């Protein structure tokens, strides 16, 4: 058994780590966050130029043919830098949906341009009532001529404000929460009837809600077979979950590093506060939470690209549950151990804490994934 990265994987991780260290120091990150774009267009371009946006795509589509572990390496480093670019949304999720279900034309056109960093696609799956249930889709698509008319609302598309193209799930059949009858459409955000309400997010990114009012799309906007997108979305959501777990591990590692440095340098009652046993034990608890999350991130990455199965779903649900709990514990304890400093906007730790808490609100929190896991329990 070998948990080490192979030479290629190590090179990949080093490349991203170097790029993040060079381009994404904390003060710069604050500026990216406050800019209109909400992230660094220049950094995104560099990701594209270095081939990092092509990591998960098949080689015949200009990709790197990267595995779940490769994506994990990239995401962990992006998490360490609190990077704001829509890598998970565009490369992992939108790229995955198109790879799995897209027509040859769609793949050729969109994936090749995602791979170079030229095209940003963001996916809208949540809705105001859906509460992480990806089958809870009330947005509707009615057949109209050769194409469809879309009506509804998709919620919290991180990076959607700057996307060139938006993919949305919409019902072409079935009742609310049925797992069949959901289709996936590509929508031009500038098309008639599309409105975006743009806002900043708690963790310093930008996102939007997308309102669809009688939006006309052509037949070529449909991705995959009509009414059959449910399982595709579930499968790709699993890859997104694995990516988020990896990102969280990067943010946890950095939070723990900052906290450890603080315990060693901050003095109270004449000694470094790291000499107090209660804080030492807390630090140990945080570190073992991180180890658990790291293990589950590795496991999640190893099954992310496997064929769909209950076993894969169980592992991914377990990984997100562990990561969600570990992330919240580490975020809260890191703030507590820093005292007031940890609550200030000027200091990076607070922003790591916010990202860790918000990861729990993407693709399901620990409660949601505990329920999923419970629903998949195997009787022995």
């Amino acid at each position, binding site marked *: 058994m070998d948990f080490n990265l192979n030479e290629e994987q190590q090179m990949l991780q080093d490349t991203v780590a170097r790029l993040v260290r060079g381009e994404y120091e904390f003060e710069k990150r604050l500026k990216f966050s406050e800019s209109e774009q909400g992230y660094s267009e220049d950094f995104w371009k560099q990701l594209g130029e270095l081939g990092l946006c092509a990591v998960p795509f098949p080689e015949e589509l200009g990709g790197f043919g990267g595995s779940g572990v490769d994506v994990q390496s990239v995401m962990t480093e992006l998490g360490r830098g609190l990077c704001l670019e829509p890598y998970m949304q565009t490369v992992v999720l939108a790229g995955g949906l198109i790879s799995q279900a897209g027509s040859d034309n769609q793949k050729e056109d969109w994936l090749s341009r995602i791979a170079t960093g030229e095209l940003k696609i963001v996916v809208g799956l*949540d809705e*105001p*009532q*859906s*509460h*992480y*249930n990806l089958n*809870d889709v009330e947005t509707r698509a009615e057949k109209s001529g050769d194409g469809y008319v879309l009506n509804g609302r998709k*919620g*919290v598309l*991180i990076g959607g404000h700057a996307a060139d193209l938006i993919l949305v799930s919409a019902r072409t059949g079935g009742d*609310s*929460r049925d797992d069949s009858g959901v289709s996936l459409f590509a929508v031009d955000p500038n098309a008639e009837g599309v409105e975006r*309400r743009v*806002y*900043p*997010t*708690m*963790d310093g990114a930008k*996102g939007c*809600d997308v309102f669809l009012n009688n939006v006309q799309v052509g037949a070529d906007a449909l991705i995959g077979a009509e009414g059959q997108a449910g399982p595709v979305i579930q499968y790709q959501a699993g890859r997104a979950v694995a990516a988020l777990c990896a990102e969280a591990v990067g943010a946890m590692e950095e939070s723990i590093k900052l906290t450890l440095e603080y315990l060693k340098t901050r*003095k*109270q*009652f004449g000694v470094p506060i790291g000499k*107090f046993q*209660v*804080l030492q034990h807390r630090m140990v608890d945080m570190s073992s939470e991180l180890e658990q999350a790291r293990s589950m991130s590795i496991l999640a990455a190893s099954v992310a690209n496997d064929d769909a199965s209950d076993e894969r779903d169980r592992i991914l649900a377990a990984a997100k549950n562990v990561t969600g709990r570990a992330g*919240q514990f580490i975020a*809260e304890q890191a*703030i*507590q151990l820093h*005292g*007031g400093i*940890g*609550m*200030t*906007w*000027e200091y990076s730790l*607070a*922003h790591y*804490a*916010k990202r860790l*808490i*918000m990861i729990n*609100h*993407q693709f399901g*929190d620990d*409660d949601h994934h*505990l*329920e999923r896991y419970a629903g998949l329990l195997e009787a022995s």
Partner: protein
Amino acid sequence: MNMNYTADELAFRDDVRTFLEEKLPADIAAKVKQGRRMSRADHERWQQILVKQGWYATHWPEEYGGVKWTAVQKHIWDEESCRYGAPRSIPFGVNMVAPVIIKFGSEEQKQHYLPRILSGEHWWCQGYSEPGSGSDLASLKTRAVRDGDHYIVNGQKTWTTLGQHANMIFCLVRTNTEVKAQEGISFLLIDMDTPGVTVRPIITLDGEHEVNEVFFDDVKVPVYNLVGEEDKGWTYAKYLLTYERTGLAGIGASKAALSHLKAIAGRQQKNGRPLIEDPTFAQRIAQVEIDLMAASISNLRIIASVEGGGVPGAESSMLKVRGTEIRQTITDLSRRALGPYAQPFVEEELDLAYEGEHLSDEDGAALSPQYFNMRKLSIFGGSNEIQKNIVTKMILGL
């Protein structure tokens, strides 16, 4: 044993309710309940209503314009005012510096400062914490050197809550470096308009400006602004802290927050039903409600012992820890109730004047910021670790 209120106490509760129903402005109550932003004018308006009623200075002797409430009456007031959405009084003037001035200040200081606290002419803030001190308060470094009729003050204070509004600050300053840390500290009242005082905002992780740094650069403070004796300030500071620590458990506020959480969970959907009917979420709410019930009775037991002549000791430290944990859990659940919609940070919806569409729940915009803001509860007023140290020594004798 009798856990019921007496007839007098029930009558008092009725008076409190009538007063709140009639006099608490609806717009202020709405802001408090929904976690929206309170302006300085909101605080001042409510303070004047309380002063007029004679219910503002609940810790003061009547001769100075206070109201002598029993511990139970104070508790009833706290519970009811939280329930109705009354803002908490900003404590620094009325509940912190005033009791110190009353107990240790000169007659002249009482005559000068107490009426101005009531009238709102003086808005006080607290100059205790320093960048290097934290819970080790006695390590403070701000110096005050006597120079004729004045002290010359140099140094820096931090975490000064609402210092941006204040025109007076009470400070712990070092007047003697030759003695043990606790013995060379004095308690000084400083006019914030004095040349050399600079206030700089600290923005917290939720984007709010609530706390500040205060810098003193050769600030001349008249000697008559010294409270009590030089170098004896630690005694006064400890006396003040006993006032600060009462009520830090925030049981009344947690009850109000829990009821707000249930309302939100009643409006949010999961699998086509209200979230409050979801088994997982309902269990989480049930658990915190049970914990709050226990803490609430613990709180009453402390109140009853104070009423019986006892002094709240380390028990209130335990209650501070439990109470703040409970409140933090409630804010955690409130954020979780929003699902993916916990992510947007829509600041404009925090203003009561906002009339646009709400992105998610009508009170949703405040929930994530509040969760992060409430992390402070386990840090300030003596961190929860310090409270546990107090329990370790005082109760367990370890």
